[in-house]
Every structure is written in C-alpha cells, then in structure tokens.
C-alpha cells in the first residue's frame, strides 16, 4: 500500500514535469502545425541558466532559499523566453510559407546548434548543483511509510500553478483570445486585424517559459545535467503531447501525468527495464482507438 502511494507521488511529480514541457510542443503544433524539435534543447538551456542564476545569487551573498528560488525562476524564465523568441525569429519565421518538411529540418538544425553551442561554451562535462532544499515529510502507513521531499511538493505546487496561470491566460485574456483565433484560422485572424506573427512569437515565448519552469524545478531536484539532457526528456514530453492530443493544452498536461504515472507504476510494480516499452505501447494503443490523442480534435480538411 505505502509502496503504491509512493509510486503515485513519484509518477505525479515526473508527469507534471513532462506536462510542462509538453505544453511547448502542443501550443506550437496547434498554432503553426510544426513539431519544434529544438524544444527539448530549450529546456536544456534553462538547466544551465538555473545553475548560472544560483551561482550569481550566491556570489552576491544571498542565502535565503525563497529569494534564491524566486529570483532564479524569474531570471531563467525571462532568458529562456528570449531564447524561444529568437529561435522562432531566426529559424522558423523565414520559412513560414515553405513546406512543413523545411521547417522540420530547420528545427532539427536548431536543436543541434543549441546542443553544440552549450557544449562549446559550457564544456562537455556533466554539471551539478548543490542541494538547495532538503528535508521531507514522512507519513507512516501501517508497517511502511511514504516519504515526500519538500522539493517534490514544491515541484507539484509550482507545476500546477504554472499550468493554472497558463490556462487562465489562454481562456480569459486578450492574448489568449488572439492565440485561439490564430489557432482556428490563421488567415482569417490576420484579416480581422490580429498580428499573427506576434501571436506566434508569443506562443514560442510561452512554450519556452514553461520549459524553463520545468528546467528550474528538475535541476533543483536532481541537481545533475549536461548538454544532452534535453533529448530524452524532450522525446518523453513530445510523447505526452501526442498522447493527450497534440494541439490541446489540457491534453498536454493530462498526457504528461498519464505518462509519468504509467512509467512509475510499471517500473515500480513490474520491471524498470521495460518501462519505456510499456509507455510507448500505451501510446500506440491509445492512438489506435483515438488517432488524435485523448483530448485532441480530429483534423478536419478545409475545402
């Protein structure tokens, strides 16, 4: 019993991180129909920015954890958002009216550029940051116990807060309305006076900011990263986006949580050797019965 509960906690924290990154994939796909393969590497950049921010803060003698983490979040989200904006500007906007394949190749190129740029500028070695927040809550259940570190609680809190804020922006604000209009019909939205280029830019910034939030949380929790860390987590988040229905915002979050839970439960109860096999089999099965994902809308051919 305690073991299953602990695995649920493990899966939920991992899944909420997948969900945050999946948002970047799903929003970009929803609005311009491309898969941004550089997104995992944007996440990777944010890990380095986290370490840089923490080093800066401790250099200026700031010790208190809330100030450091708050400052790190703001710094990392702003700078990573700027990365998202620049990437769209440099690699995708010039190809806006080309075939999908060209944009895809441009995205793969961007991914390689980011990896190599970080490798050259920051070194190829594995990096680590010291533990910032220690301690845990322990619940005794029967003979066993469930232990949740404060860091894990913070991840859950911050991830769901981030998703809530984003949902609010998309549903209630003017920017959100413009995003939804552009997603439904880009040409029509632009005829009605929406600056769609700016909307697309802001979608990239939002996606990068969510990846940055995930990057800060994961880096603080696991403490270890290198220039290649975006690859595996990017693939997982992309899977989560497809699972939930690519293009759908709640779908990305749901997909992330389902993927995280299925990995943790399968690894914990059956075998960790085959957990990825299980996750991807789950994806295949869901796509057989719901080709556009759990919450995705079927694509309608416009005539």
């Amino acid at each position, binding site marked *: 019993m305690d073991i299953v509960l602990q695995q649920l906690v493990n*899966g939920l924290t991992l899944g909420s991180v997948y969900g945050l990154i999946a948002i970047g994939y799903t929003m970009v796909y929803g609005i311009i129909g491309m898969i941004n393969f550089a997104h995992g590497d944007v996440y990777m950049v944010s890990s380095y920015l986290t370490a840089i921010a923490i080093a800066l803060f401790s250099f200026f003698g700031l010790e208190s954890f809330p100030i450091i983490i708050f400052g790190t979040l703001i710094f990392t989200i702003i700078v990573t958002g700027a990365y998202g904006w620049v990437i769209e500007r440099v690699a995708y906007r010039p190809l806006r009216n080309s075939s999908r394949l060209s944009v895809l190749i441009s995205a793969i190129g961007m991914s390689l550029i980011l990896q190599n740029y970080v490798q050259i500028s920051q070194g190829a070695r594995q990096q680590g940051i010291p533990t910032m927040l220690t301690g845990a809550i322990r619940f005794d259940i029967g003979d066993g116990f469930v232990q949740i570190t404060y860091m894990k609680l913070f991840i859950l809190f911050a991830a769901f807060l981030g998703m809530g804020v984003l949902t609010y922006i998309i549903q209630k604000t003017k920017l959100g309305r413009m995003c939804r209009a552009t997603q439904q019909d880009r040409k029509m939205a632009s005829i009605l006076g929406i600056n769609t280029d700016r909307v697309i830019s802001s979608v990239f910034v939002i996606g990068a900011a969510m990846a940055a939030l995930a990057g800060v949380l994961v880096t603080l929790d696991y403490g270890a990263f290198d220039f290649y860390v975006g690859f595996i987590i990017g693939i997982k988040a992309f899977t989560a986006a497809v699972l939930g229905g690519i293009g759908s915002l709640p779908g990305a979050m749901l997909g992330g949580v389902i993927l995280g839970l299925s990995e943790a439960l399968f690894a914990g109860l059956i075998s960790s050797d085959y957990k990825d096999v299980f996750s991807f089999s789950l994806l295949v099965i869901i796509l057989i019965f719901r080709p556009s994902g759990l919450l995705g809308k079927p694509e309608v051919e416009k005539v």
Partner: protein
Amino acid sequence: MSNTVVRKTLISLAIAGAAFSAQADVVIGVAGPHTGAYAAFGEQLWRGAEKAAMDINAKGGINGEMIKLVKADDACEPKQAVSIANRLVDSDEAVAVVGHFCSSSSIPASTIYEEAGVLMVTPASTNPTLTERGLPNVFRVCGRDDQQGDVAASYIVDDLGAKRVAILHDKDTYGKGLADAMKATMNSYGVDEVLYEGLTRGEKDFNAVVTKIRSVDADVVYFGGLHSEAGPLVRQMREQGLTATFISGDGIVSDEFVSVAGSPEYVDGVLMTFGADPTSYAAGKVVVDEFRESGVEPEGYVMYSYTAMQVVAAALDATELDPIAASDWLHENSIETVMGTKKFDEKGDLTISDYVMYEWDDKGKYTMLNN
C-alpha cells in the same frame, strides 16, 4: 627494360616510401569519451597519456622518433567508436591506440584495429568479452569485471553479511556485465538477489526503482554503471529515506560522482571496487609528484592511461615500430611501468589483478579500506 626490372624498381620505391613515412612521428590515438556525460573520464585518459608521451619524448621517443598523440572522441557511443577507429586507422595512420574507455566502445573498435594491425591497450575497459574473442592485438592494463565482481561479492557476503541484495545496472555492456559477474559469484556463495533491474542511461529520475528497492527491503544495493547515473540514484535513495549500503564498481571513480550526487553527504559510506591505489607504487612516485606539482590530481584512470602509454611505447620500441610484432612481444615479455611490473597472459589480460574495496567519505573523497 624487362618486367622484372620494373617490378624491382617499384618494390624499392615502395620500400623507400615506407622508410620515408617512418621518418615522421609515431602517431598514437587516445580514444575515449572526450565529450558528453562521461567526458570526465576522457580527460583522465588524456592527461595520463599526454604526460606519458611527453616524458617518453623527453627521453628520446620510441626508437628515436617522437610520439604524436591524436585525440579521438567516441562519446562512449559504440557507433561513434567505430567511425573514430576507422579515422584513426585510415587518415591518422595511427600505429597504436590507448583506449577506449567504455567497454561498449572498446569491443566494436577493437575489431577494426585488429583488421588494420593496430596495437590497442585500454586503460579502463573491464568487460571480459573484450579479451575473450582471441584478438591478438588487444591488451588492458586494468582488471576484468569478473575479478571485480568476485571482490564485490565476497565483500557483500563475508564482510557485510548481507542477506537482501538488490542489483541494478545501466543496460550497457560494462554496467550489465559487471552486475552479472557480481551476481554469479554472489549466487555461488548461496545468496540470491532480491531484485535485479536495469535502468536507462541518460535519465535522471530513478524514484520509481528506488521505491521498488524499498519495497523489497534490501540492505545492500549493488549498481553496475557509471557515475552520471550512480549520483542521482544514490541521492534519490537517501531522499526517500533508504539507508541501504550502496556499492558500485570502477565506473564511479571521479570527483564528478560527488557533484552529480548533489552533495558529499549523499556519497558518504558509498563503497566501490577499484584497482589498488594507482598512485601508491614506488615506481610511479616521481610521476605522481610531478602531476601534483602541476596542479593535477592523478585520480581515477590517469595513472592507468600513463601505464597504457608506457606499455605501447615499450612494445613498439622493442619491435622497431611494427605493431603486429609488438602484439606478439607483449604476450611474451613483462614491462616496467609506473604501476609496477605488468605481464600479460595469452588473452591480453594482466596476469595479476588487484581489485580492492574503497569507501567514499562525507568530504567527497575515497580511501582504500584496510581488509
């Protein structure tokens, strides 16, 4: 002019050409993960090999020719190891290679060196398969995982008296090989593992498998793999309140193990098997001191790499730079190195293995345990 004359001229030209190219430097490759998550080990190999080459050159080189090192980066990827091995053989025209690091890179690369008649001495690849395939050109100056597994297993069973042992590995040639070797010996002592699982290299979240270790109530966790996974793994074990002893092999011998684990407190009490302190040999004292004077701590595989270079140089020197003859020579003769006298058996393994148990402390350093 008859045909024979033409042929003779051509042959003499060819010989002259060979003699001419022999006037150039002796090219030796240093192959390992110079980039990527395991770059710390590539750096260790390079430091050792570089210093050895400088010292040998200062004493007049091999057969009067200077050693020229070529850095070959395999990033610990089998595919890249093969292409880098081809590059060393074809375009760099290396006569010998010090490397690779990861067994999963060394094994495919060794086949290419064998076909090209290039001598290969690895300072670090411990998987038994490497020397079990009868390749005459392959040597290692480190031990084998079956020997390492024996030491770990007898320590777990005899010294720790553990009854509930969980075994994890990273599904790679080295990691799984080491875990399996330890498992085999431990089972032969009558102790069965309570858990045997693989985890994925490159991931950082092992919470699910840690919870599983907790559910089987293990008192020892043995991990076959490298520090990039061992660090987060041991950290997540401690964070989940798991106090089981963590034991691993020579894949975590790097300061990075501590930084990746997040803090020295997490590595406190971690045990590992590694060759007897490579800096403790009387023959290597001068070199160790010189390393320390230049601000480089000869940790991990630095001295092994130095030794590998000495072995290569001694063999090539004795056989006038013929790598094939050098391989035969190494099977017959023993070599004086900074890590004592090394002698190889017919497979290319060392005749004496010297694995011992080390313990990490709360300052992030490791010391040999006195058994």
